[in-house]
């Protein structure tokens, strides 16, 4: 297994050989599984969320439903899985097994208590078996146990109380895993910070309904004839994950490191999370789709990305896009442009013409004889929807060109 010096990092005081972890989920369900993930290259794991086992945990069947877009499989994934259904002792034994056999890898114990006592017990037990960090699950959106998971985040003060409870009994760094299913994620984060959290993880799954059966009128996944609003993950939620991570990283009074999660599959996704302020990364759905092997290309791709730019470490990447992330009222509205067509490369499908007519500024006409669009730049809004549908995309045939002093284009009233 290749080691990438450039990718070593320290997060909440813990050394990582690389920043890519399994997030807490079925991909990190047992010691044996995680061992193979470590061998494949993952730098750490957030183990499947552990409870004390006082309430019997039963996973609904089936527990997941895939969301496809045309012929692309698993663009999103919905699940109603609960926290670990295994005995607490077995999970703790697995954490200890992992630390013993892969001492250089970071083992984070994800825990969820239903009372303050339980939170403390879980924290203590995790520390005793050698976990490097704790992650407090305040964010599972579909717990069958009343008042747990995401419900804790909704009763915001509890986030602070449970975090403080945990901090009382352990010296380990503590991450609070947050839900995006809330108006302002930085508010929950503030409670966690007040409770003493050392870092934040975002995001857990997004509350969603991935589909409805047209034969049975049952939302997916169909659990014995019923569906439930529940956690949605994978590439479809990456934009929400990026937004949440950036919000947390930009909230200057917080000042807590963030572990980014949601829809990471490639090194490009990973780089985006890093640039928006994530210090480490977590993955579930990418592994559910492709297996642990995806880490190989994430690491190698990130390493090339750094090398190409002459960067020596992740600290030269993390958060570097944040200065360019502004509220929209800070845009320079005087800069305007048009779509620029390299017609030599046009294949003549006319999709640009259709969308410009029906959703743009009607600046393209169609030359029937040549089968090519004809641009009337004086009507181009520069909205660029044509470039989104153009099949000649690598490199794009339609690009944005800034036109200094471009006059305002306002369609006249229809007659």
């Amino acid at each position, binding site marked *: 297994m290749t080691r990438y010096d450039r990718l070593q990092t320290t997060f909440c005081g813990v050394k990582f050989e690389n920043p890519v972890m399994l997030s807490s989920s079925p991909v990190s369900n047992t010691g044996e599984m995680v061992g193979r993930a470590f061998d494949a290259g993952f730098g750490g794991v957030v183990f499947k969320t552990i409870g004390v086992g006082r309430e019997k945990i039963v996973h609904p069947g089936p527990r997941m439903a895939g969301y496809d877009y*045309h012929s692309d499989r698993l663009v999103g994934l919905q699940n109603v899985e609960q926290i670990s259904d295994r005995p607490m002792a077995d999970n703790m034994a697995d954490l200890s097994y992992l630390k013993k056999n892969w001492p250089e890898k970071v083992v984070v114990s994800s825990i969820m208590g239903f009372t303050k006592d339980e939170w403390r017990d879980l924290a203590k037990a995790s520390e005793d078996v050698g976990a490097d960090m704790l992650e407090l699950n305040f964010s599972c959106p579909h717990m069958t146990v009343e008042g747990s998971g995401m419900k804790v985040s909704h009763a915001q003060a509890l986030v602070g109380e449970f975090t403080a409870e945990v901090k009382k009994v352990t010296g380990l760094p503590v991450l609070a895993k947050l839900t995006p299913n809330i108006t302002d994620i930085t508010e929950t984060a503030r409670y966690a910070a007040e409770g003493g959290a050392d870092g934040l993880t975002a995001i857990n799954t997004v509350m969603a309904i991935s589909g409805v059966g047209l034969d049975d009128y049952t939302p997916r996944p169909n659990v014995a004839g019923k569906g439930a609003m529940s956690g949605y993950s994978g590439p479809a939620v990456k934009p929400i994950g990026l937004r949440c991570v950036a919000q947390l990283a930009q909230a200057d009074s917080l000042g807590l490191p963030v572990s980014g999660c949601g829809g990471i599959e490639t090194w490009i996704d990973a780089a985006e999370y890093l640039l928006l302020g994530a210090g480490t990364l977590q993955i579930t759905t990418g592994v559910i789709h492709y297996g642990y092997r995806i880490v190989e290309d994430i690491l190698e791709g990130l390493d090339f990305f750094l090398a190409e730019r002459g960067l020596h470490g992740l600290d030269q990447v993390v958060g570097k896009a944040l200065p360019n992330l502004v509220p929209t009222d800070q845009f320079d509205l005087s800069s305007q442009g048009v779509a620029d067509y390299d017609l030599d490369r046009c294949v003549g499908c006319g*999709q640009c013409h259709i969308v410009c007519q029906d959703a743009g500024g009607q600046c393209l006409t*169609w030359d029937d004889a040549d089968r090519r669009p004809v641009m009337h730049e004086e009507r181009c809004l520069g909205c660029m929807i044509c470039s989104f549908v153009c099949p000649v995309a690598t490199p794009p045939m339609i690009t944005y060109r800034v036109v200094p002093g471009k006059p305002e284009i306002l369609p006249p009233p229809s007659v």
Partner: protein
Amino acid sequence: MKPALTMNQAMAEAARCLLCHDAPCAAGCPASTAPDVFIRKLRFRNLKGAAKVIKERNVMGGVCAVVCPTCSLCAAGCTAAGLDEPIDIGALQRFIVEHAWEMGFSPLSAGKPNGLKVAIVGSGPAGLSCAAELARAGYQAMVFERLSAPGGMLRHAIPDHRLSPAFLERELEDIRALGVRFRLETAIRTQQDLDSLREQGFGAVFLATGAWRCATLDLPGRPREGVTDALTFLMGAKERPKELRHELAGKDVLVVGGGDTAMDAAVTASLAGARDVFILYRRSFAQMPGSPEEKTLAMDAGVHFMILTQPVGFETRGDRVTGLRVVRTRLGEPDSGGRRRPLPISGTEHSLPADLVVEAIGLSPDTSIREIRSLRTDEAGRIQVTAGQRAAADLPVFAGGDAVRGASVVAKAVCDGKAAAAAIRKELGR
């Protein structure tokens, strides 16, 4: 037949379609099957709508999907070729049609009976499409077919490995469901036959008798045994496949010609277990009129291509063929058709031994129909028509398909059948 696409494969192929503003595929389909529309419907998961478009526009939509030479028709102008490969329109069309069959969805229905009867002569794609169109408009469509099973070339000539009889039968079921009726083993040839149809109350007649006359090698000493024309060979192969296997086991076959019929005959011989199968063609490979798909099928079947080779005589023992005398050729100046003419190279004459020689050098309409008064035919036997497929000025007689065009393709036969149906409806006022 090739394996059909799965739903996922079909969706992936449909996703490659550029959904053109002015789809060249639509303009390239002689039967107006509207590939641009049905692919878009598939893309947006409206599979029933897609099947409806295909079947409403082309009752032979299933068969066409399987046998159309798409690369010279719909796919010829496909814009996606500018990026990578043209869309596999035939495969998508077949997927949609078969999916509708599996779902039990029949988009077509018979029209309200209008009491009018039309006679259709010939049950090939031209006749079938005319009959189905009329039945949908409420006519009683009766198809007269001289052979014992309907379908024309589709049933009797196109080999099973390209179009399975079960697939054709399923498409015929859709047509029968419209109330189209068949009178088999009934030829309509003479003026008398035609008069009798009128007496039976048929208000119009559509002649779609195809092109079933095979050209034969114009060489001296043609023996009686071991030489056959391609249609006879292909019909035999479909009717008596076991006997053919028995006859061809370990035998060598020479197929003369370079069109699709030659390819079909050669592949059929090869699949039936012949030892060596040769295609003899006097021009170059590129000049062969056979479609790229069919040439590839032949090469994959291990057929040997003897290009620039021209037969000059038969070799015989008694009444049986033992081979062909051939010469090598080279290409000279273009002939009147614009193709470079093959010129024999002197001193290259030699023999090619064979147990069977199959002549696949051209098909033309059969002349028997010419007995019908007021029909005009050209020197190639093709029935002459005016606008609306009208074949006689004084009688409501129409014609289309290969009988009018000479050997052509299914999609064009369908097109003629539809045009004739429209003209007949106009003529009869419903």
